[in-house]
């Protein structure tokens, strides 16, 4: 039984995270004023718009 409960918790977590990801991607990609981009996370995505704001470091 504990195995089934653990699997259910993991599945709910996955659904939540994937759902949130899709929602964010959808929001980013459809927002015409967005400056930080599609958030597709693709390895080949060289889009300057694909860099999340938190990755822009503050220097000095």
């Amino acid at each position, binding site marked *: 039984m504990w195995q089934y409960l653990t699997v259910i918790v993991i599945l709910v977590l996955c659904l939540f995270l994937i759902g949130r990801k899709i929602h964010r991607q959808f929001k980013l990609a459809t927002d015409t004023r967005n400056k930080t981009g*599609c958030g597709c996370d693709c390895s080949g995505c060289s889009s*300057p718009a694909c860099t999340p704001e938190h990755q822009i470091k503050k220097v000095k």
Partner: protein
Amino acid sequence: MNQTIRMALAGNPNAGKTTLFNTLTGARQHVGNYPGITVEYKEGVFTHQNREIILTDLPGTYSLTAYSVEEVVTRDYLVNERPQVVIDIVDASNLERNLYLTVQFLELGCPLVVALNMIDVAKDRGIVVNPEKLSALLGAPVVPIIARNGQGTQTLVEQAISQIDRQWHPRDISYGEDLDAVIMDMIALVTNQNLLTSTYPPRFTAIKYLEQDDQIRQKGSQEDSATASLLEQKVTQISDHLQKTMDAYPEAIIADHRYGFIKSILRQGVQTHNFDTDRLYASDKIDKVLTNRLLGPVLMGMILLGLYHTTFSWSELPVSWLESFFGWLSGQADSLLPDGPIKSMLISGVIDGMGGVLGFVPLIMLMFLGIAVLEDSGYLARVAFMMDRIFRVFGLHGSSVMPFIISGGIAGGCAVPGVMATRTLRSPKERLATLLTVPFMNCGAKVPVIALLIGTFFSENKAMYMFFFTLLSWVVALLAAKFLRLTVLKGAATPFVMELPPYRFPTLRGLAIHTWERTWQYIKKAGTVILGISILIWAMMSYPELPAQRKADYERQRQEVMAAADPALVAESESPTETVSEKAQALRQQITAIHRQESEQALRHSMAGRIGLAMEPISRLAGFEWRTNIALVGGFAAKEVIISTLGTAYSMGEIDPDDSESLAQRLINDPHWNQVVAVAALVFIMFYAPCFVTVVCIAKEAGHWGWAFFSVCFNTLLAFLLAMAVYQIGSRMG
């Protein structure tokens, strides 16, 4: 912290804006040695002498007239956001052309600092620029810099800060007697009627009317149609007059005078040539060979083939190590964990699903390294230049080539920035035709899927097949574009001029950063999104479970087989030793067959199995069985999911816990897969519906969800017809 300063970074394409942006902010925005990298603006923050500076990197543009989206974005940002200072980055080795934009900034009147970039390249070409003299003549500070290594950038920031309190002060340039007179009239009209004066200087508005700037004319009409109409009349009158007297339009005369203004500046000792100006630069010499009409395409083919050959041959060993590692991990999990759903999820969902994607990390890494070399050296721009000739035949614009390459034209790109890069196209129909066909390229997510199928079924000539499938992606994309241009997107072609950046030696650091960032993105995506989707797909493949009655039936069948056999034989067949007698081996096979049947029935009974089976009557025409269907449906979320789903599906069908073979071996052993099915699957995967994010981007860029829907349907239908043709013809040919 003192006040926050807002600075904007502008300049011609490929002048080094993004490099300077990265140097100043410490960001790692993508920099490519080809024009058109920045299609919308982005912001970064850094501090200088305890002051926070917000730096905005604007798209590269040659002018401030609304001919293209970049020009509109840049101009709108400057007039609407009013940055406190604009850093205009100019290429010191192409000063005359770069100063054309500078002159327009001066006409706009924004506080300006000129960053004289690539002084090292200019020096190599024998060009010496006198920044003090240039500064005095332009009336704005000029700072020599090398953005790549940061030389001069601190002085640049200090000079920029010194300009922040300056008021906007437009500079007047004479456009000849005729135009100057009409400009004065128009300025008076604009000023008296307050037409757009809150946004643009009156002289700037007048000049843009003369340049037939659609956006300004539209805004003018919306704000005050009567005044706008008067301005239009004046433009028509002067245009007619100039046409009669000089056989030229106002736009051409304005451009001539701007260049005249620039030439007069350069001739005053600002720029001197140490070498003969006719001397062929090294880049030009290399281009004579690499972009030769006949030799160029041959060399391009050889370079691509070399890239694929190196990638496949060098990655073979590390890929096999990773396969062995995941096989070992699977075995460990199997022996350590108790039977149950967690064990199944870990082995089939996580290790075989995500592990299948991670196993290709060495191949992806080498592919990205090769592409980074081509990109940083400037060769990709030459590829675009050579492809331009072909593109025109298929009704596409020369500017369409770069979006294709960004999307994975050489393999390993991404369709999302490719779709966004179509903004450089001015004709809406050419732009739509491009953004609907760029998803046909082999993006970074498709590469591991293609590599898996090629490596599994065509292991002898992997590089050659990769080259073939790359060519196929271009051919299909161009034919689809031609079809669209002849049907739903009919229209005339527009002219195109392409700038070829000089060749540069890629730096080791640059290559390492580009390669690692893309590889890390791949690993990160596999460990997050793909992992999550793999687990969900595992659940869809596991539930609902077979009814207890059917499970009991299979158990009964096993018991019956055991009961009918000699107890000694049963004991021998259940022993862990591999070498057993023939009879014991036959018993093992009988039990295994029942297990296999049960596993397959359980999979078919699951939610994913039912979806895959429902699609099978149609997908069979292209040779795809239900497990492949599930993987292809999953691929709509992200193409890497195809591998993880196949990994999970074939792992769950596996009944021998000790047999931890790779996905490639499982596919080879599966009776549903062969070379013909593999080619049909490859064709379908390359051309069917773009991933979810790309579809949303198409809707955004096309301005209508209808085009996104069209893209999904058109691509899937085309892909299926092609895959079906491959399978049907291939099967009949044996």
